[in-house]
């Protein structure tokens, strides 16, 4: 069985920026399997590289700023060498860091949904609230398929 890591990140006090948290929380309820681990955080820090070394697949769920509100995107990630900052990394930088530190090469995907409002508040916009089930359904379906595969880690 493969291991899957689902990372939901953003600021839940900046409305739609918190959609990654909401999605990851919902997925942790619908995917209660030991092969799946969840991380919910404000931003991607270098320590997360350690989580990537023990997984086969990783989803990074975040809000996007550009596009139509509620628009869903899922893209595979590739390594991205460059300056690695201590407080905040992009998913690609984090993937690169895990590879450099531990030789970890999980297959990674960014799953993003375009937000509408990013002002102060703990609630999602109506548009994102309505569209979020599309995102969680996509990640849930992919995850169910992926955990059935044999692990490719050495």
């Amino acid at each position, binding site marked *: 069985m493969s291991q899957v890591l689902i990372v939901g990140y953003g600021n839940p006090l900046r409305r739609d920026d918190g959609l990654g948290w909401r999605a990851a929380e919902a997925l942790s309820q619908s995917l209660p399997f030991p092969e799946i681990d969840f991380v919910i955080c404000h931003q991607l820090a*270098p320590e997360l590289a350690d989580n990537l070394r023990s997984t086969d697949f990783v989803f990074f769920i975040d809000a996007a700023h550009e596009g139509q509100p509620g628009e869903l995107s899922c893209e595979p990630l590739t390594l991205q060498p*460059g300056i*690695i900052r*201590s407080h905040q990394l992009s998913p690609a930088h984090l993937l690169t860091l895990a590879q450099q530190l531990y030789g970890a090469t999980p297959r990674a995907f960014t799953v993003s949904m375009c937000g509408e409002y990013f002002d102060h508040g703990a609630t999602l916009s109506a548009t994102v609230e309505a569209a979020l089930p599309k995102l969680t359904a996509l990640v849930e379906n992919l995850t169910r398929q992926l955990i059935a595969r044999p692990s490719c880690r050495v």
Partner: protein
Amino acid sequence: MEQRRTIVIDPVTRIEGHSKITLHLDDQGRVEDARFHVTQFRGFEKFCEGRPFSEMPSLMARICGICPVSHLIASAKACDALLAVRIPPTADKLRRIFGLAQVVQSHALSLFHLSSPDLLLGMDADPAQSNLVGVLEKSPALARDGIGLRKFGQQIIERLGGKRIHPAWVVPGGVSEPLSAENRDAILGSVPEALAIALRTIEWFKGTIERFREEIATFGNFPTLFMGIVKKDGGLTFYDGDIRITDASGKIVADGLDPTRYFDYIGEKVESWSYLKSAYYKPKGFPDGIYRVGPLARMNVADRCGTLRADQELAEFHELQRTAVLSSFHYHHARLIEILYCIERMEQLLTHPEILDKHVRAIARPNALEGVGVAEAPRGTLFHHYKIDEQGLIRWANLIIATGQNNLAMNRSVLQVAKHFVHGDRLTPGALNRVEAVIRAYDPCLSCSTHALGQMALRIQLLSPNGEVLDEVVRS
């Protein structure tokens, strides 16, 4: 208008927060003055007014994403004083563990993520390489250790507080949940690896410092006072104790000072060029009352750590200088000893027979209208002082943060480094990095420390493209 030639370093990199440094040159191009300007502004003391006191720990934790636990603890202690309760012994121990884990992760961030590029690659390294990538390429093992140690601290915070950043587990009267056996065992299981990392990092660090003789001699290497809380027996503590102040010779200047009476002996001065106030020891006045807090100060004021390996390292540390250890470069060394102490001390506390006790919170209504909470944060002594009304609403709050207490020393340190390494009106990459590195040695947290709402003069300058001052508005 007087024209002064200045060199501006903006922003200062690899520190917590936003700041700039100006170096003022004389006619011969020699540095004659230097200032460390904190350019970001916060206002927590003001906007917490009117909030219920019970919200204060969670509200104050939002001051900082690096050391929220320190603010939680100091704030909760101030609230304990408002309730006039003695918290259950197990809650006391759990809070201590929480704080120690915070120190480990914060010190690891400072040393491994922010300063290790300087220490590993050298002060004259190519700035493009002087970052985590450079560390990764030169020493992946060191980078892994940094990540491992920081994760160790964060996971303890997460296991105790429910989340890594802004946990709300510490509450007035104790903590909200007892420790489970599962979490205790998991934390204890991670101690040996953390201890091994701490020990080999100290050995690595001691092996590198010979390369930094010039920096040790010039990085804030001057006499000041040192301040920190110590136990009744003079031992190191991060949670509870009395204030001790020592001088540059190592002599105790004041001991057994009541930390809740900080206003009797600590003054704060506002400067027009920074949002960060400058604290000083009142009996010596400003600026002669300059003092330092944080790891270097704690290692100077404490007689012992109280754990085996940390005490061995402290003894060696005290041999660096016959007097107090003065160079701020040694903040790094002190930080490592504290990491070691924190891991050892957490193991002691976690194996205490009462650590799983379920009684972890004292419940009471407010019984006092004023309370002060004091703890040692990673960067130094932290004071939270609140006044409430009969309804329990905050009417006044004052915070004194470690970084403000180091402000005078940081400014003087920048000047010392700049005078030694900066020549002419151009900054070489090595000189620039050293000016920044001396600030990094203090590990200032500027988000934490700028709270002077309503007291800070505001200066706005309108500059022409060639830098000429066209207009200036000053609001005091």
